[in-house]
């Protein structure tokens, strides 16, 4: 006798698989976009342009400034070619002022002012007890190892930190990584480490930062920006003083008013051209330097995974091969802290679902092209790759400790592997 109910039960099991199949079917894949090369070429011109006050390219605005860090994009992004990282001399100084009963005030101490030296922003404008330095050297605000004694002591509630210029190579691929892939990385890390929460500094468990409109942050040292376009617009406004539809140029911090000028310096099309140029920058490559053998590089690659570097600097992310980053925020310990933001409130994401970023949290920087982007860490305090690894704290402590346990030859192999990650 055919027992029909058996078929019904089996059918129910099959039907149970339909919703997840539909979920996978309609899940967004990589947001691959074709770069318009004519736009990119126009963007390259803008990228290399030395902007002026009342620039002819800004008919509706005031051009460069009033406060700015450099007069062109390429002035900072130049290591390994236009779009690369920058040296210590181009560091951006940021501040956070926390007063009892008041929301934190944060922003940038810009290096230049169109009015000249007398009108520059200085640390004194942040707090009267600080010196009137406009562009402090890193050793003045960070106690670098072996150079004790020259660091400023900051009043309570004042945080001063710097940011090193990041490289923009392969940024189109980073933008294409679907949000759910980044979140999946965070979940996998949490599962692997016994459901350890991301605010635990013991295990490398990161978190994806949720920004405006339910998106995941992918750009910036704090992963505070979701798209390349927003990143470009924020940088134009804050580093060059070029107001645009996405971000307004800052006014000097001593002006007292947080309001910003909204006369447009860069049109949306110009911003898109700049974005297209950044998106057209090729991804970094893996290339053997002269002083590293292939065997050593391969051995170094294995050691890279063995000591735990690959826990956060994951070699592949979604469809992007060789990125060496999980694009997650990780707590890096008390030594690697830095507050501050481009503005108060942050301009690029005014409707941000701000979950609050801890001063010790940093997005895992992609290591592709790392050999051509010295100095290292968020403020460039580590002149060499070895020093950068040693200074990993918090969730990176274990990997740093394992690195130090390696023999000298093994360390050399690991560093040799990192030296194969070159700018295009």
């Amino acid at each position, binding site marked *: 006798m055919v027992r029909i109910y058996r078929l019904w039960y*089996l059918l129910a099991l099959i039907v149970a698989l339909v919703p997840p199949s539909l979920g996978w079917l309609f899940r967004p894949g990589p947001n691959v976009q074709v770069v318009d090369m004519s736009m990119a070429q126009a963007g390259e011109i803008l990228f290399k342009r030395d902007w002026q006050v009342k620039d002819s390219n800004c008919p509706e605005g005031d051009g460069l400034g009033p406060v700015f860090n450099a007069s062109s994009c390429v002035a900072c992004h130049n290591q390994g070619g236009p779009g690369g990282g920058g040296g210590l001399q181009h560091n951006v100084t940021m501040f956070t002022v926390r007063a009892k009963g008041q929301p934190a005030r944060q922003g940038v101490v810009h290096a230049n002012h169109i009015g000249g030296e007398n009108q520059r922003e200085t640390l004194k404008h942040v707090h009267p007890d600080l010196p009137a330095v406009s562009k402090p050297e890193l050793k003045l605000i960070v106690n670098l190892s072996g150079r004790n004694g020259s660091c400023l002591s900051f009043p309570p509630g004042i945080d001063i930190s710097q940011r090193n210029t990041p490289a923009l190579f392969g940024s189109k691929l980073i933008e294409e990584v679907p949000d759910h892939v980044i979140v999946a990385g965070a979940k996998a890390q949490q599962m*692997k480490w016994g459901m350890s929460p991301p605010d635990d500094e013991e*295990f490398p468990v990161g978190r994806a930062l949720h920004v405006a409109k*339910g998106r995941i942050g992918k750009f910036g040292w704090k992963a505070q920006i979701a798209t390349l376009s927003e990143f470009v617009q924020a940088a134009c406004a804050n580093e060059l003083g070029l107001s645009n539809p996405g971000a307004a140029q800052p006014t000097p911090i001593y002006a007292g008013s947080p309001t910003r000028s909204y006369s447009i310096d860069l049109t949306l099309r110009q911003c898109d051209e700049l974005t297209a140029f950044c998106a057209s920058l090729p991804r970094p490559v893996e290339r053997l330097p002269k002083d590293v053998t292939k065997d050593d590089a391969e051995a170094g690659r294995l050691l890279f995974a063995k000591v735990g570097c690959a826990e956060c600097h994951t070699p592949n992310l979604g469809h992007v091969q060789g990125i060496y980053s999980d694009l997650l925020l990780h707590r890096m310990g008390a030594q690697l802290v830095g507050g501050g933001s481009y503005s108060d409130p942050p301009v690029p994401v005014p409707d941000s679902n701000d979950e609050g970023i801890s001063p010790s949290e940093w997005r895992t920087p992609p290591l592709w092209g790392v050999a051509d982007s010295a100095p290292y860490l968020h403020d460039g305090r580590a002149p060499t790759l070895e020093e950068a690894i040693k200074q990993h704290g918090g969730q990176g402590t274990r990997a740093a400790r394992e690195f130090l346990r390696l023999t000298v030859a093994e360390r050399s192999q690991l560093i040799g592997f990192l030296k194969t990650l070159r700018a295009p």
Partner: protein
Amino acid sequence: MSIKFACSCGKRLKARDEMATRLTICPRCGSLVGIPSLNPRAPDAVPAYTPSDRSPFLPPDKAAPAQVAAVPPRPARPPRPFVEPRKVSAYIVRLLSTRAERRPPIKERHLEEFWYQCLQYPVRAWPLCGGLAVIMTLVTALVAALLPRVLAEPAEDPWTRGGVVVSWVVLQLLIIGLPCSFFDLVLISAVQGETQYLLWSGNPLVTMALSALRWLAGFASGPVLFAAIALAYWLDCGDMGVGDGFVLGELGMVAIAYQVFALISLTDRRRLRDLNPLAVADLAYRLGGPGLMVVLLAAALLLVHGWALLLGVEQVHRSALEGCAILAVVWLSGTFWSTFVFRLLGIWCHRSKRLILV
């Protein structure tokens, strides 16, 4: 030793000694067969059942033929052999009864008639339920707090590493085997119609290992597919939305419901082949709509407990005390409801078997 005998259909059967004088079901024809006594010459020995013995249980239209009915009526069933259990410890043993050492049923205690009466069962077994919850809380917290550290820094000394591996295996046995064996015993006892005791092998380690294997076999027979898909979906879905929650809840409920039905199917006839989907479907059909409803509700409840357990484990890393408190509540609640559900389903399975056979 085992007792060898034959059914009227010709099927050769054998049973354990302790099953002497009891009834069993012929796997070929499905009829009730009496298991002969160990000492057939004894005056109170019970002969094996014949088809005529079934006539008192059968409806009139299916009664045995006249010539068979002429067989003398079955004598009154003798009391179960009673052996005083080994006095290993005080209270907990009173709740346990090894299959070899059956004790007489407690007077005035009957099999639960209504579903809500099964709620009393975990209350009656509170020392076992509470003990299990406490042990599992400690083990879960210990594993959550220590295991990642141990894995992160593997010992270089081979002896130490071996010790870690052995400890890990023991912990795994505890984590999987302990709750599995307890719920397994609850289910076995209910399916066999026990009113008071938990039937167990008499050896805790054997019971745990066997139960863990049974649960794993049940899991591998089908639920693993849904669980794996659910895990992959959860990992890949990004931030969970309402739709994702629905998909995961649905997959989780199907996986758990399948696991429960598979376990009951395995317990019912004690054959590994009853884990096949068709046999599981047969059992689900036997338990009917109420059975399906209870299993689905239990699955939903278990999912909520699983989610709370994850929260508790996460909290252990922040504050051990708070994490342990959450874990204790989750395990206590989970043990209570699981015991209730397995008792209820086991009894329904027991009754459905009788209904079909008689």
